[in-house]
């Protein structure tokens, strides 16, 4: 609308009939504004990426300094869990997630990853120790991963299948171990 205003002033100062370029500019400005709003609206209406969609690519730098690139993980089932140390509901599921990880770890074709959202490292480490979490965890640097998945809060968990397609999204905490295995097992053909 910035443009719209200026151009309308411009037109007013014209002594002959409304100039064509002025009209074009005003309509163009309006069109740009509406397009922007439409795109923004679509973005908010979309919500988090949903099952059936291709999972966004991401690179997670773990607290140990290891880099995990989603491109290298094809063929594995990925359980991507967003959490934070200040998040009370996250604590409900922390132990279950670790138990599930212990259960699947030996198979080698399931990988649990924890993404620490808007958190500080000392508290995050304390949280990981408290729940003895052993799967790779890393900070969400620049909140890039959370933005790519358009998460709305923590905890949220995304289950990605062997082909890199989202098969399940869990908004809010898992309430039991069986709930976790129930969404992973079908992907493993069990």
């Amino acid at each position, binding site marked *: 609308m910035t443009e719209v205003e200026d151009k309308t002033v411009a037109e007013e100062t014209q002594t002959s009939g409304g100039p064509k370029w002025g009209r074009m500019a005003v309509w163009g400005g309006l069109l740009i504004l509406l397009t922007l709003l439409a795109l923004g609206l679509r973005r908010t209406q979309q919500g988090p990426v949903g099952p059936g969609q291709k999972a966004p690519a991401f690179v997670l730098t773990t607290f140990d300094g290891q880099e995990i690139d989603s491109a290298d993980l094809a063929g594995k089932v990925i359980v991507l869990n967003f959490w*934070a140390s*200040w998040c009370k509901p996250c604590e409900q599921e922390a132990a279950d997630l670790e138990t599930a990880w212990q259960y699947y770890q030996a198979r080698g074709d399931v990988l649990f990853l924890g993404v620490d959202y808007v958190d500080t490292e000392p508290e995050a480490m304390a949280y990981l120790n408290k729940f003895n979490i052993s799967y790779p965890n890393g900070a969400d640097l620049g909140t890039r991963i959370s933005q790519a998945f358009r998460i709305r809060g923590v905890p949220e968990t995304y289950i990605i299948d062997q082909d890199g397609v989202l098969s399940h999204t869990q908004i809010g905490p898992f309430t039991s171990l069986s709930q976790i295995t129930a969404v992973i097992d079908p992907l493993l053909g069990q």
Partner: protein
Amino acid sequence: MMRYSRLTMVNLLSIMRLVFLMAVFFALLVPGAALAQDTDPDAPTDDEVNAIAREMYCPVCENVPLDVCGTQACAQWRALIREKLNEGWSEAEIKAYFVDQYGARVLAEPPRQGLNWLVYVVPPIAFLAGAYILYRGLQSWRQIEPVAVADEPPQQGEDILPDDYVARLEEELRRSQQ
């Protein structure tokens, strides 16, 4: 000022979701957390921490400056600032660290680089363009009536005023001053 309007949308949530998200976004600051500072005289004061925090925004409480946000996440951020200050970091270094960790949105203004330059450049340009247009307009309007009214005695200038009241008032004023 209308901050509540967005927050009222909370009311739209179904019961389950409300409880869950509320717990996430408004996790209560645990009383006592910030009291556990050491009493080292060289330790950064609350004011030093707040001076930096007031120009930062944490994604968990959008649009509320970090120094007054009451969530646990923000309390942790302030603790982190304190820790970095204690290690002798400068304000700029601390901010750079936060940008690395959490993205440019933590800053109160976009960093001056890339596309962000538009933020700073567009308003002045638009304003100057508007000023120029207005100037041109005033010029062209003057040309329509090129008679230099300004040189005439004030009475005549006043006479062309459509507003009788103003003219009268102005005239009264002139007389009163004579």
